[in-house]
């Protein structure tokens, strides 16, 4: 278990799928996802360097509110790609996403010994971009017309964060 100030990141476990189904039923959640959400995967074994995907609990109540993790981790280049979904609408705009991303990055630097965390985000997702910038992420690549979303071409940012940039 990895604790932040508001949230706890823990291994996914059977039973989480039902919460995930509700998150992904919410168009407000899925409109910003870069891929169609398939079934919520519960890894059979332990969380590893190669597959660190968590369920995010509200620490105060123990309610699962979303998912976050690090994928495509490269041990040579010591970077990984982060993702974050606060699926429970009641927990949006209240600092839970911010706390989750900070906690996840702390874990990436302090436990996984990564040098850099990266993420990809739709350019129009202002709230998420602002959140990531508050965490310390920097926009590095601006991919033009990179994604076909809701009948239009959208730009995408690749953002990156080094240990010393984490706030």
């Amino acid at each position: 278990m990895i604790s932040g100030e508001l949230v706890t990141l823990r291994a996914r476990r059977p039973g989480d799928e039902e919460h995930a189904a509700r998150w992904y039923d919410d168009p407000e959640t899925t409109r910003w996802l870069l891929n169609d959400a398939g079934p919520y995967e519960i890894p059979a074994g332990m969380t590893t360097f190669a597959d660190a995907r968590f369920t995010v609990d509200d620490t105060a109540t123990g309610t699962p509110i979303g998912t976050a993790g690090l994928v495509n981790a490269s041990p040579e280049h010591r970077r990984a790609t982060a993702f974050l979904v606060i699926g429970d609408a009641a927990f949006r705009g209240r600092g839970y996403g911010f706390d989750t991303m900070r906690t996840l990055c702390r874990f990436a630097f302090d436990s996984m010994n990564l040098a850099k965390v990266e993420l990809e985000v739709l350019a129009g997702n202002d709230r998420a971009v602002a959140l990531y910038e508050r965490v310390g992420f920097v926009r590095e690549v601006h991919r033009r017309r990179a994604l076909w979303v809701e009948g239009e071409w959208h730009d995408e940012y690749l953002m990156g964060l080094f240990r010393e940039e984490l706030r």
Partner: protein
Amino acid sequence: MIPGELVGLRAREPEDAALFHAWNSDPETMLWWDRTYPPVPVPLQEERLRTVPSPSFDEPSFTITDLATGTAIGWCGLHHVSAEHRHAELGVMIGDAAYRGRGYGSDATRTLCRFAFDRMNLARVTLVVFAANAAARRAYEKAGFVEEGVQRRAAWKRGEWLDLVHMAVFTETLR
């Protein structure tokens, strides 16, 4: 075979294994490739090439030949092809040193991009190049690729952190 002006792109064959191995072992060829470990032995490479699928939407990977002689001179392909978002990432290697600096790499790049746009119906082709590889960046720019940003200290190579430049081209800007 897909003809360009100087090169042809054909399906990879098991017979290419020894050449691929030689190129992937050549420090000069690999100078700007993100490859940490040495290539697999020739017999294993040959076995892999025997089982790779013919070029397809999901795996458009080719051996580059000299159009005039048919000699295999390199490899090129598209990765991370997205059907929904209609983009892919390009990689081109001219393995035969005799064909470097003579326009074969540029022609292979252009031929593969045209293939991506005209046959695969993709909208965007991207590539990632080491920021320090000035010659490649110039060549890609000449082909119509535009730089979209710098991925900072993204690769650990030869004992130092290197930046990567991301570039992209659309069908209407390919030259």
